[in-house]
């Protein structure tokens, strides 16, 4: 565990010494500030459109941070030849992968805390209330979803040659799931065999990342809390996919030549 945390620590240092997070955070704040300053019929209590915009920007920013940070971990180590002195230490490849994963995941968690704190402050400025439990549920599931995405990107970084192609494919895959994942079975119904069966199989096989993504609507429109049992089950569901992608990544990396 010590080695895993040591590797994770290096990833965290990398993130806060790069500019990515700060740029995205400032961009989010600026866009929200500009949109919040629009006068809508002299009513300064209108907030939901701003909450929706802010949450959308948070999701976009978190995906950018998660995927781009993860996609470059192993390829950058290989390209910059820092991988060799690293693996020359008593560090197994599995622990290296786990260290990279935890580093990226913790980094995303820290970023999410900053983003959601800003979101809470923004909402409270007009709503004058702090539904902390609701925000915590959304942030927690968001973080769990990012875990699955990071594990996927890590696997992709070992399969695809270039970080850019890995990042593009991950983005496309994740966005497609978020937009269409819920409705693939409906689309399948309208097709003939064998397309129908293939699409059904895809529907059940993919990680349904649209579930944490659509939780935003409950936050935006002040719906009550999600049941804690269901929250726990969803977290387990996402963890299962995370574990699956990580195991696959470890198996692929063990067979890969590193020089």
């Amino acid at each position, binding site marked *: 565990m010590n080695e895993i945390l040591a590797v994770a620590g290096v990833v965290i240092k990398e993130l806060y010494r790069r500019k990515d997070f700060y740029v995205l955070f400032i961009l989010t704040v600026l866009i929200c500030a500009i949109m919040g300053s629009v006068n*809508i*019929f002299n*009513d300064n209590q*209108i907030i939901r*459109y701003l909450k929706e915009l802010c949450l959308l920007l948070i999701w976009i920013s978190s995906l950018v941070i998660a995927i781009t940070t993860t996609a470059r971990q192993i390829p950058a180590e290989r390209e910059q030849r820092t991988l060799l002195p690293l693996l020359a230490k008593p560090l197994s490849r599995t622990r290296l992968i786990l260290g990279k994963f935890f580093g990226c995941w913790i980094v995303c968690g820290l970023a999410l805390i900053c983003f959601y704190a800003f979101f809470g402050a923004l909402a409270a400025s007009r709503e004058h209330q702090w539904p902390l439990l609701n925000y915590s549920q959304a942030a927690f599931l968001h973080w769990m979803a990012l875990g699955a995405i990071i594990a996927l990107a890590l696997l992709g970084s070992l399969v695809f040659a270039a970080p850019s192609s890995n990042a593009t494919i991950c983005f496309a895959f994740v966005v497609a799931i978020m937009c269409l994942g*819920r409705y693939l079975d409906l689309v399948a119904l309208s097709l003939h065999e064998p397309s129908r069966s293939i699409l059904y199989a895809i529907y059940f096989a993919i990680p349904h990342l649209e579930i944490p993504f659509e939780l935003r609507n409950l936050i935006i429109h002040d719906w009550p809390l*999600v049941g804690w049992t269901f929250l726990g089950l969803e977290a387990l569901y996402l963890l299962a996919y995370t574990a699956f992608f990580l195991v696959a990544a470890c198996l692929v990396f063990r067979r890969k030549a590193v020089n």
Partner: protein
Amino acid sequence: MSNRRTIWLVLAALFIFCFGLAANLQPQFQSLENSRRQSDNFFKLLLGDSSRIFANSFFIKADAYYHSGYYPTIFDNNEAFKTPHMAEDTGAIASHNQGDENSFMGPPRNWIDAFSRHFIPNRHTHLDEGGPTDDLSKSSEVREILPWLKLSAKLDPENIRTYLVTSYWLRTRLHKVAEAEQVLREGLRNNPDDPQLLFELGCIYFEDYHDLAQARNIWEAGLRSWSRQAPGIPQSERLKLTNENFDSRYVFERLQTHLAELEEKAGNRVAAIAHWQQAALASPDPKDPQKHIDELKNKNPHL
């Protein structure tokens, strides 16, 4: 040294040439600009006709906000949402909704669908009825639909439906009469003499400002505009009880009905009876205007 002087001279010559060219082309530019005045809307310039598609999307988005996010997508059964409820509830738009608005998603299709429904809005509510909390003290949260309506109006200024819906909610739920009037006037700038917009504006003067004279002027202008809408088609033809005539009849009836009430309030019973008689021509149930006529005649037997 001579190189530097040459560079400055060339720059000066270029500047003079550009200035002269701009001055020479100015009259042509002005005439072009005037003929393109209709496209001074930034969004229309940017998006062209597709701005209407965006406008419609944002109008639907406002209705989704009206339902606190519980809204059908293109994959769901949206028979009960063909006419946005926030527009239907204003009474200004005819409804084409059918089916069950409470369960457009249908029963869960599989365990994933069943499980995911715990993470999305899953109950039919209206913001003006308290939203998800059913707390009527929060009915003013209907304000949340306004940004999308404002955006929709900007993108498609020729769609009067947006102005009607916006002004209704501003006036009735949020008690922002001045803002509602501004919205209607903006609608009239983009859609001159539209009878529906004139009707709503007249309502503001009648019900909120209690300015009977101005309300009368506006409604009568609305009637004149209604008459001019279909030149060559007789009024009787336009007031026939057919589906095609529904909107036209509806506007005419509302204008005549409200003018009748205004004249009653002003004590002009003759004018009031005349308007009720006109309203009866358009009403699907003529007994109601006739009842008002009978009441007025009973109060004044010589009429």
